[in-house]
């Protein structure tokens, strides 16, 4: 069974992706906006995925997760990720990871809670 994986940079081969530890959950790849043509054709724009952690045990684990996505020292970082796509199949995609925004993407209540690692601007990896 596949797991969520990540590596720094774009177009990193599957064999070189590292399993995210601990494993997040997600609702699969979504789109920023869905628009429609006059003939009913559908356009999904701005693919992204949110990797969710309900709670992490301590600060060190939280910072380790940030480090895996390269957003501990930087606000954003280019990554290759293995995530569930729109039909929940596993897909290797390029994107930009975004450090969680305190108060919105992470909150502190004795532990780091409700953490969201956003990976946006997704495109198929080569």
């Amino acid at each position, binding site marked *: 069974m596949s797991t969520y994986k990540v590596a720094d940079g774009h177009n990193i081969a599957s064999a070189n992706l590292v399993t995210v530890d601990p494993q997040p959950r997600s609702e699969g790849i*979504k*789109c*920023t*906006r869905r*628009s*429609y*043509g*006059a*003939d009913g*054709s559908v*356009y999904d*724009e*701005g*693919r*992204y995925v949110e990797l969710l952690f309900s709670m992490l045990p301590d600060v060190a684990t939280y910072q380790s997760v940030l480090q895996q996505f390269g957003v501990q020292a930087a606000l954003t970082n280019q990554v290759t990720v293995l995530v569930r796509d729109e039909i929940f199949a596993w897909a290797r995609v390029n994107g930009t990871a975004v450090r969680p925004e305190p108060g919105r993407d992470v909150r502190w209540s004795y532990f780091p809670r409700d953490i969201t690692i*956003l990976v*946006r*601007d997704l495109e198929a990896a080569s």
Partner: protein
Amino acid sequence: MKVVLLQPAVVFRARVNQASFSYPLADITYDGVTVGNPSAVQPGMTVVFGSSAGGDDLGRQRVRRGPTADTLYIGRSSRGSRDGEVDLADNAHVTVLDDYRVWAKISYIAADGTVYKDADLEVGTNTTTPPPVANAGAPTAGTIDRTTGKLRVQLPHGSNTSFAVAGTIASYSWTLPAGVTLLEGYNLDDPQIQVDCAPGFHWVALTVFDSNSKSHTARVPIFARDPAEDLCIGSCTIESHRITPQGQQISLRVLESIPEGSYPDGTLVMLWEGEPAGPADRSHLVFWGWHHNDPASIAASRTGILRGVTLECLDVAGKLDRLPGFTQSVEGKASPASWLEMASPNMDKYLHYLLHWHSTALEVADWTWTGTGAAFPFVVLGSDGASLFDQVEQRARALVPDYHLTCNRLGQLRMPVDPLLQDIAQRTATVQATLGEADWSEVRYARQRPGRYHWHRGNAVLASATEIAAIFCVAPGDAPAQGELAQEQGEQLARSQADLNACEGHRYARANAPETPFTITLAGGDDRGIEPADYTWVQLTISSSTAAQRGLAFTEARGLPLELNIRYDQRREGLARTVGLLWERETAGPPAVTYTVPVSDDPGGHGGGGMFPPPDWDLPEFDFGFDWFPSWGAVGAVTRAAVYVQSGAVETDAAASPIFIVPAGMVLRLKAAVARLGTAGTSSTSVRLLLNGQLIATLSFGAGGCTASQAVIDPSTGQDYLLTGGDYLSVQVTAAGAGAMGLCLLAVMRG
């Protein structure tokens, strides 16, 4: 999306070495060079003057030619500190930047009346054999290759479109700055080259030489991005983006610090998305131009101070539209002795004259002219004061059918014809995009069957190098339609009456188009690469299944893209782009009708007792201020509106060589005579106007370049002369020296 603002390198630093200044000035003496040497300073570079090193508080100008060891030549400047002004003091700091912009070149008229372009440039042979136009291609930006550490670029990106205004292109010469190397297999005198660019910003120059030994230099900017030392502006969003045939306007909201000291006012801006697919690819370039102004906001909130600045940027056309163009005129002359004279003038040469001698636009952007060449000659032509863009656009639109000055998304200036004013068979067949029902998500329009205009009158001067003859037409014809309004189109240059009639017929149809321009929202946030500046077709389909309740439907109807408005919605999850297209559906109409003077003098109208009076005509005006007597064409005699004294001899009258014979059935009231003597004429010139061989008016001139006019009164009646069919007018000219003279007779139809 990536944005880079140029931080121009300093190529030269010195100090003003001059005790006093007489404004306006166009050169300064310097010493105390601390950076670079004079040979590094190129024409077109930006120079700033300051009370401290690198400062511009004492003004900014452009270098107009290479300096000497102690003298820097700048654009003609009055005293001040704004762009185009200087306020100098001894030892003021001089800084020349590796930076090129669009400037107006200011002309100068000396006390003796001699005109100089760009402060001190004499006409020489510049209006006999104008210099060529160098087109170095569109700029590019991209990330360096990981392996080579360079960005590979082809210049120009397409075929070399440089051209000669007179003669032919003889040779090319590329000048590469440090950091740009020529690839093996190419030479610097090739029309097209490939280069490798080191990280950073570079200006590459192309000089073309023509067969008359004239030359022109254009420069193209290239930015090679190094991710390891990224000079791009990271925190930036697009507030607005508007694309029209007249170019692009873009507003960038910048969230990081961009101090003026590092990014000077008016600096170059480049915006691109993705990476070029190859050395010749420019499809990733979204915008390039210059910073124009920057609205800023500072707001104190509960938790901190929020700051924001928006850079409003203009492309080359936008810059031209904000620079001054001054009133001027050009007259045909076999051997020009002044900037006001041109050999074998035609509209294309006049357009080149405006752009080349009055701005630096052609030094930083490609330009292609109409290509009409000798098809549109003129005797004399002028321009009102307006922006430089408007001056060129107005003269391009004076052609029949209209041409336009446009600027495409790559910042290239073009002059395409307006296909909606051409006959259908002559219209372009190029379709740049086809919008099926999968390509749009919303369409808005208004339909109005009744026309808005009941009459459209057109007038023009026939294109000629020797005479000025006016022609008229009216659409839809002698009988007006049902619209409320009337309109007129004048100041045009036409090859024939038929051309004018065809063009104005289409213009009338366009003004009365049954639908307003369509506002279309393109699906998926994709602009389909639509280029309004091309004046080529976008096809649209609205099927019967998607048509609105009134049932308007069509399949692949042709139309022109008038405007693209792109809204960027930067959301947390990504970018959502909304593209709005304004689209004008194709129209066409029957030719307008040639206007002819009615044969009856019945004050009630045509042919005795008609219900509708003929149109009231305003005689056409051109910028040189003449009111021209319409030429009805030869009736067995030479009909001329201009008389030229060739060599000082008297040009005799005679019944055998009248200048005008009143056609049978026509009735005219001759009201006045106006004549203008060319600059070479003398005060000893006089013009005698004769009616049927009898002297009726004498015009005398004070000096060359003057206009004389006289009302013409019949002494027997005390009123205007009444001319009927068979009456003839002739002219007797006496001149002490050679010179050109134009004669105009002002008359009105009927009694």
